[in-house]
């Protein structure tokens, strides 16, 4: 997964049903369940705003998994060995699976798969901005596993305990599979670092390009975040800045073992805080990429739309085939 806290204000629609007086009893029951750390299940009553927040977050998350297959899929045919090709194929297939678990979870909230796909293809729905950066060399594949999947894991683990049952269960399944993604990436980089000077340079170059986008994956600073209700509802359990700090702290040692430098001159241990300090994030770049002006936004969406449209006749033929088979069966009966 690659959720990113895309705390973008949503247009206000009609007053959430939960505010209506006739729903006060339901609301109280819902609040009590949340306060007790319980789970909300698909058919349970929930405030409209809770449902909308979940649909938005889960579908953005699903879209990110699906679009996330593109930058890596780009390298499947050029993997340097059969072993690396098999590993990369398995990883990309996992990401496709993650997208499908999550679409299924979103659909339990009463939205159809086609509506979700349409929202992505029309550009209305967002996906993680990280996938709008290009994968220029084989080292990028290792760095994506190490840093991008690594950041995703930090984001995802708290979601395994989020208050919406179907989302939490999908996240448990996803988290079990993500560790392989990060480890294969790091392993790939270790191999390159034991190679030639040119290969080591490729790794450093990839780290230089992916470091900042990776720490942007945690989303805007807490003071600039708008969706505070997510915390009250038990959807977001740890804040963007806390997760980002955890990620930075964990990554410093890994970079050292690998023998690369993280491209931030201000990155240093702060004894008093017990954490690493790091430099200012370029939020203009972040918002530009979220807003559609990253290097690959246009290509990524075009690739998704093309795949969907090229597959349309197959989806229709399969439905028609089943319709005819069922009709034959009825006649025979």
């Amino acid at each position: 997964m690659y959720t990113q806290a895309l705390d973008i204000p949503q247009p206000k629609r009609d007053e959430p049903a939960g505010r209506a007086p006739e729903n006060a009893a339901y609301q109280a029951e819902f609040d009590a369940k949340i306060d007790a750390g319980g789970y909300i299940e698909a058919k349970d009553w929930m405030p409209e705003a809770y449902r909308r927040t979940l649909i938005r977050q889960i579908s953005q998350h699903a879209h990110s998994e699906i679009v996330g297959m593109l930058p890596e899929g780009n390298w499947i045919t050029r993997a340097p060995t059969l072993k690396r090709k098999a590993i990369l194929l398995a990883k990309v297939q996992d990401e496709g699976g993650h997208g499908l678990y999550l679409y299924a979870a979103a659909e339990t909230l009463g939205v159809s798969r086609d509506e979700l796909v349409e929202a992505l293809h029309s550009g209305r729905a967002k996906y993680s901005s990280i996938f709008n950066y290009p994968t220029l060399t084989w080292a990028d594949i290792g760095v994506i596993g190490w840093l991008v999947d690594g950041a995703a894991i930090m984001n995802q683990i708290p979601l395994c305990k989020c208050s919406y049952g179907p989302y939490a269960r999908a996240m448990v399944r996803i988290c079990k599979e993500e560790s392989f993604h990060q480890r294969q990436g790091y392993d790939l980089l270790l191999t390159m670092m034991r190679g030639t000077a040119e290969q080591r340079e490729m790794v450093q170059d990839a780290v230089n390009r992916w470091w900042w986008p990776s720490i942007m994956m945690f989303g805007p600073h807490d003071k600039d975040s708008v969706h505070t209700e997510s915390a009250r509802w038990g959807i977001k359990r740890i804040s963007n800045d806390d997760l980002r700090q955890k990620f930075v702290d964990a990554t410093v040692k890994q970079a050292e073992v690998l023998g690369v430098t993280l491209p931030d001159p201000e990155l240093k241990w702060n004894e008093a805080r017990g954490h690493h300090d790091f430099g200012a994030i370029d939020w203009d770049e972040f918002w530009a990429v979220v807003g559609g002006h990253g290097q690959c936004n246009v290509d990524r969406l075009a690739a998704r739309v093309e795949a969907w449209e090229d597959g349309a006749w197959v989806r229709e033929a399969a439905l028609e085939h089943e319709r005819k088979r069922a009709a034959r069966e009825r006649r025979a009966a």
Partner: protein
Amino acid sequence: MERKEWPLWEVFVRSRNGLDHKHCGSVHAPDAKLALQVARDVYTRRQEGVSIWVVPAEAIVASDPDAKPELFDPAEDKIYRHPTFYKLPDEVNHM
């Protein structure tokens, strides 16, 4: 409007013999055969199962969450259905 979306199937996987099939998610597929194949690819990439059931989602009849009190609360005060209700002398309490 003509329906273009593949129907939804609920997927149940038996992780190994001796255990129940357990619900693990859902897939879209045009027919039962493909639903099984898709479920295999989506939910058992690491030998998570030895058997899969797929059920058309619309064939599932579920209890109403609002009916929880009348359905399940009547069992609450029937504590005599549990073995711990009966206090027996220590010497025979392992019964």
